[in-house]
């Protein structure tokens, strides 16, 4: 027993020595909710991390597949203890854990993705993916013949609802009579269920499918049925060469590099960073040849208008699913309202629960 105790103590001392030997580099930590290998949400963030890792004097590390809640708090806490200078937490469920740790480590900068809380040393950030969704919606609206578009979606949270709404408004810009049907899978990642959900939408006559999911199963369903599809997260055309029209994609790299630079220079402010098309954090992939040139031009023109700030997507007149007027002409939804969007615009068929 004594020997064991001695062993334990010596191991403790040794490991403490390991921890002390931290480098002088600026350390940036990333916490991901799913394995990076999945080519979805976390993968897109990790592409951003790789861009940061190329900066001189910067060291990055990540922990993947971290469950939200207690586990997340511990992982973030650990990074802070180890002297990481800047920590990005990339799932909405990390919001409270990030805040708790931020309070304990006032000299570490925390950035939480997709939430709404800030503190002295904690900011939040997100991309205006809804702008890219709107553009992809335009493509869908132009290409549908049945006027039914299927949307396979993960969880009814504002981020997803906002995307569905923007997409629907884009559809209606090109095709006012078209409707968007939503099926919730209640999972970010279950290819078989996603594919089944896609098929259920095909059965009710959808001829363009899109998704807010991490796997390309929906693209595959569209390809097999011979209808069109619109991707998300990254260009998914290799999964559905004939079906894939366009995708709404993330480019986190420039944003992450900007944040690292700001924190190192001391110009970083704890606020909500919500960048859009203009900064390139979201965009659309190149459109397929099947999309007529006239449509492509129109989409690119609108892309420019959004980027220049000339076009606001959630602007009045705007009615909700039940026909109730939410915005009159001349009004526009504020960022705060957008962040907490829990209702569907007119033209969406489905429940928000």
């Amino acid at each position, binding site marked *: 027993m004594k020997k064991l105790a001695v062993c334990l103590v010596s191991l403790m001392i040794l490991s403490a020595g390991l921890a002390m030997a931290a480098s002088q580099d600026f350390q940036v930590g990333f916490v991901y909710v799913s394995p990076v290998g999945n080519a979805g949400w976390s993968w897109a963030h990790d592409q951003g991390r790789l861009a940061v890792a190329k900066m001189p004097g910067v060291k990055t*590390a990540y922990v*993947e597949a971290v469950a939200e809640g*207690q586990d*997340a708090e511990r992982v973030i806490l650990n990074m802070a203890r180890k002297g990481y200078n800047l920590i990005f937490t990339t799932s909405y469920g990390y919001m409270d854990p990030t805040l708790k740790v931020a309070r304990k480590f006032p000299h570490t900068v925390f950035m939480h993705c997709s939430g709404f809380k800030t503190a002295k040393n904690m900011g939040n950030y997100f991309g205006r993916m809804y702008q890219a969704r709107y553009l992809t919606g335009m493509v869908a609206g132009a290409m549908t013949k049945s006027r039914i578009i299927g949307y396979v979606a993960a*969880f009814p*949270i504002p981020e997803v609802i906002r995307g569905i709404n923007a997409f629907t408004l884009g559809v209606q810009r090109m095709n006012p009579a078209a409707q968007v049907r939503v099926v919730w899978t209640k999972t970010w990642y279950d290819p078989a269920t996603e594919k089944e959900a896609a098929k259920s939408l095909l059965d009710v006559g959808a001829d363009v499918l899109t998704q807010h999911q991490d796997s390309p199963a929906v693209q595959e369903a569209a390809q097999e049925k011979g209808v069109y599809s619109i991707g998300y997260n990254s260009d998914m055309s290799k999964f559905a060469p004939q079906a894939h029209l366009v995708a709404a994609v993330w480019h986190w790299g420039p944003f992450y590099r900007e944040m690292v630079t700001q924190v190192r220079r001391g110009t970083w402010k704890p606020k909500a960073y919500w960048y859009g098309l203009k900064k390139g954090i979201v965009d659309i992939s190149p459109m397929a040849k099947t999309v007529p040139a006239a449509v492509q031009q129109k989409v690119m023109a609108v892309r420019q208008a959004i980027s220049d700030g000339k076009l606001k997507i959630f602007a009045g007149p705007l009615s909700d699913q039940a026909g109730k007027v939410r915005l009159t002409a001349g009004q526009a939804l504020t960022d705060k309202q957008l962040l907490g969007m829990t209702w569907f615009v007119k033209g969406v068929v489905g429940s928000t629960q």
Partner: protein
Amino acid sequence: MGMRFKISRRQNPRRLHSGLVLLAAVGLSLVICALLLEQQGKPSLRGLMLLFQGAFGSGWALQDSLIKAVPIFLCSLGVAIAFRLQIWNIGAEGQYALGALGASWVALHFPDLPWFVLQPAMLVAATVCGGLWGLLPAVLKLRMRANEIIITLMLNYIAIFLLDYLVYGPWKDPSSFGFPMTRMFSQNAVVAKIGAGDLHWGILLCLVIGMLVWIFLGFTRLGYEIRACGENVQAARYARMPYAALVLLVMAASGALAGWAGFLEASASLNRLEPSIMAGYGYTAIVVAWLARLNPLFIGLAAFLLAGLRVGVEQLQLELQIPASFGQIMEGLILMTVLGGSFFVTYQIRLLKKE
């Protein structure tokens, strides 16, 4: 001339011997892990050191491992009681969810009660909800002869979707910008931390209930009856043991304990109810319970070690950038090796020279 083995059950397995065998098994599995790390091109010795350091190698690490062990321990204690009677409760996950639901309901409806009233009330609600969720399969088993494995497993899914429904719907915090979470609990509803550290008083609850269950199972008549019935239902019936009552009792207790874990997670760790409370503790609990041979004291140890392993693996991930799946592989291998090793605790092999 050939060799022959003779395998026989050990008559009196000695403590020291068992300990050494298990230590050897753990050692072997760590060697396998080191080899795997080497194959990855990572420094294996440093890897094992990091694993240990992350799990038990500092005050923080010990604290983290203890906190993580709390829900696993309670759920495991619960299922162990049921397993003693050979009732296959796979439903700790759902009972845990219901416990969290019950406690949250109280916390959300009576936020202004003083803590010494509110927290016991939450505990009672968790006990009732978790207990009832455990009783349901027990009643179906006794009345309808429905197999408890399938019922408890299915009830897990239903409980999770029920929790989902509430936090996405009626219980959603109006100021959460539409995110699926309830309002933050009032300070009175949050189980306090011990001193300045991160450890909460729930750990004390675990110690007390762990001791109580140990005494109950080992030294009371009812505890004896549970074990006797579990070993042989027919004989126990013959001895007029109240089998049905025992089934109800163990399932209610099992559910209540898992419910407590849900209460502590919601109150002390999350300070609210949200879907991320479901982290699979209910399933981990089954592994822990059997690994500890259904002994409450060993369950405490096994829960702590397994929690430590998971905490330590995070360290390994962060420092050496190995994928999360590597941690799973290690956990699986360690469990398998320890399990295989337990053979040498129970049996002895002798080499016989064949003439």
